[in-house]
């Protein structure tokens, strides 16, 4: 009681609490050898990733003459964007020399249909499996679980036959659809597990209020899926963007994504290898997923831990 009155009086007379001496002086914590060891260890870990990145970045701004000198850690003597321009506009993939921008736009046109297709299908399926009374839901879920572990290489040939008979082989659509199909099992499981945590009473209330599958899905369930959508979006964007195998298998000559483009221009160059061009091309290819990470990375962590503690 007396302590309260002391602080009240202090507040009333305008004396700031910082000015009075503390009742119990706490010992200051210094830097211990333990802290130093941890810092050193973490710095080494960081260097492990940063040094190669540094080399790639500085090399992409150098001229070929400077690169030939061999000092890979030195900064560029002349900063030039020539390599970036070349990689984007003029680099040759096979006999065509239109640069990486072709692959970039291909990747974009693969990415969006594929995202929309896979996520919308997986959401609906996950919702039905988790919250709707579906016959054989358990068996279907088990099947999906098995499918999630089938390696792509095993079903590659049948998939090629299927895309050829449906006349989409060698187009961007083939790549997009195959991405969507292969992602389905895992995405469905993710959505299904997320929806399983929605309190049953909310679902019961929705059943009594509306009872319509689509109305409940669009009005109640989709608005509640924000967190998990971010997680799935990032997973899908990176895996589709970074994929090489599906792109090279189903894209044919016209539907190649950026990664295939990149591999071609690095491996099929004639004469001397222009390291600056290659580094710039590699960076250009890697930038989009990085941008996505930077933009929504914070939300990603929130989404990953969202199911851990019920809010």
């Amino acid at each position, binding site marked *: 009681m007396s302590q309260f009155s002391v602080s009240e009086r202090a507040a009333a007379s305008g004396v700031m609490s910082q000015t009075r001496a503390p009742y119990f002086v706490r010992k200051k914590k210094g830097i211990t050898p333990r802290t130093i060891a941890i810092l050193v260890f973490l710095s080494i870990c960081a260097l492990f990733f940063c040094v190669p990145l540094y080399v790639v970045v500085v090399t992409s701004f150098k001229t070929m003459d400077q690169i030939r000198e061999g000092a890979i850690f030195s900064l560029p003597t002349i900063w030039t964007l020539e390599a970036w321009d070349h990689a984007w506009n003029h680099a040759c993939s096979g006999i065509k020399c239109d640069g990486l921008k072709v692959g970039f736009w291909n990747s974009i046109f693969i990415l969006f249909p594929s995202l929309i297709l896979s996520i919308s299908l997986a959401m609906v399926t996950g919702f039905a499996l988790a919250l709707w009374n579906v016959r054989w839901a358990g068996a279907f879920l088990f099947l999906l679980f098995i499918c999630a572990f089938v390696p792509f290489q095993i079903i590659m040939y049948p998939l090629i036959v299927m895309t050829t008979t449906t006349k989409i082989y060698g187009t961007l659509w083939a790549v997009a659809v195959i991405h969507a199909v292969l992602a389905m099992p895992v995405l469905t499981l993710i959505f299904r597990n997320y929806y399983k945590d929605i309190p049953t*009473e*909310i679902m*019961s209330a929705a059943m009594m*209020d509306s009872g319509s599958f689509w109305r409940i899905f669009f009005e109640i369930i989709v608005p509640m899926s924000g967190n998990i959508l971010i997680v799935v979006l990032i997973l899908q964007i990176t895996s589709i963007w970074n994929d090489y195998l599906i792109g090279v298998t189903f894209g044919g000559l016209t539907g190649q994504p950026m990664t295939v483009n990149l591999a071609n221009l690095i491996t099929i160059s004639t004469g001397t290898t222009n390291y600056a061009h290659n580094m710039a091309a590699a960076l250009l290819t890697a930038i989009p997923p990085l941008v996505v990470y930077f933009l929504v990375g914070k939300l990603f962590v929130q989404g990953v831990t969202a199911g851990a503690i019920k809010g």
Partner: protein
Amino acid sequence: MPAVSFEHIVKRYGAVTVLDDLNLAIEDGDFLVLLGPSGCGKTTLLNLLAGLLEVSDGRIMIGERDVTELDPKDRGLAMVFQSYALYPTKTVRGNLKFGLAASKLPSEEIERRIAWVARMLQIEPLLDRKPAQLSGGQRQRVAIGRAIIKKVDVFLFDEPLSNLDAKLRTEMRLEIKKLHDELKSTVVYVTHDQIEAMTMATKIAVMDGGVIQQFGTPDEVYEHPANLFVAGFIGAPAMNMRNATLSVENGKVEALFKSGARLDVADYPFKSPPKNGANVVVGMRPEHFSIDDSAAAGQGRFSLPVQSAERTGSDATLYLTFEGEMLALRVAPDLAAGLKVGSTVPVQFQTDKVNLFDAQSGQRI
């Protein structure tokens, strides 16, 4: 306003039978409380009525309609859930509106009803908030609002007050009671709280182990419990129960306790003529005792040592030792304060309030 009836209801989960041949019928405008301990099947029964669970066998009637095969939305019911089950991403207005999702009403009518509900429940200033921005009591009001906006004839409540604090619970209890009087609807209300049951119900069905132990008005259930379970479950502090044997001699009927104490039960309305030597359980409510040293020795009079006293605000509970066990009495608090542990007090029981049960079957005799 329809009556509701359950006819020969069976509910099985795999090999487990939860409800077996259950029958229950209430009349139009009744406030039925399903009362029982956790796991007694009361929520299962409510969910069967709501259509959230399917009956394994039997028929459910609402008014003249057989609703057994209907979807929840087509049964003409509204339900309030224990956790309120508000849609977290919708505003209060959106929640109320979604309550009408199955009915194809014109938008002016929807707006009119939202205004009506908001005024009635005093949630007008909250209409544009999300459920997360509301307090427990406000959420409860919105949940009730989402039910009454449907203007249906039968309302279901699944332990709606158990997440509220004591003060709010009392307020909401009165409010639900008032709503029932205003709307003149039929209500089925599930709870494990006997005070809610006693205060709100017009009919109580006490359930245990999937069986309806007693069905009647609150007074019937309290004053004339049908068996030992109901007697022990309803009332706080619980009814005092002691084993005794009946002695029937020349028109005198007495309950003989082990300690030798006697209680005259000649006026008790026996269902069948009492048998001499029958083993019975004598049930005595704590409030039917009085501490009284004026009158001379008579029937229902004991002299018992004090074990402890407990004050519960407006009254106090006195624990005396009788037959080697605690006997609870409701007394005035100042009286309890004046008593010392170990001292002996004279106690008078109102013999006309006694309850007798068969010791074997547990049924009222």
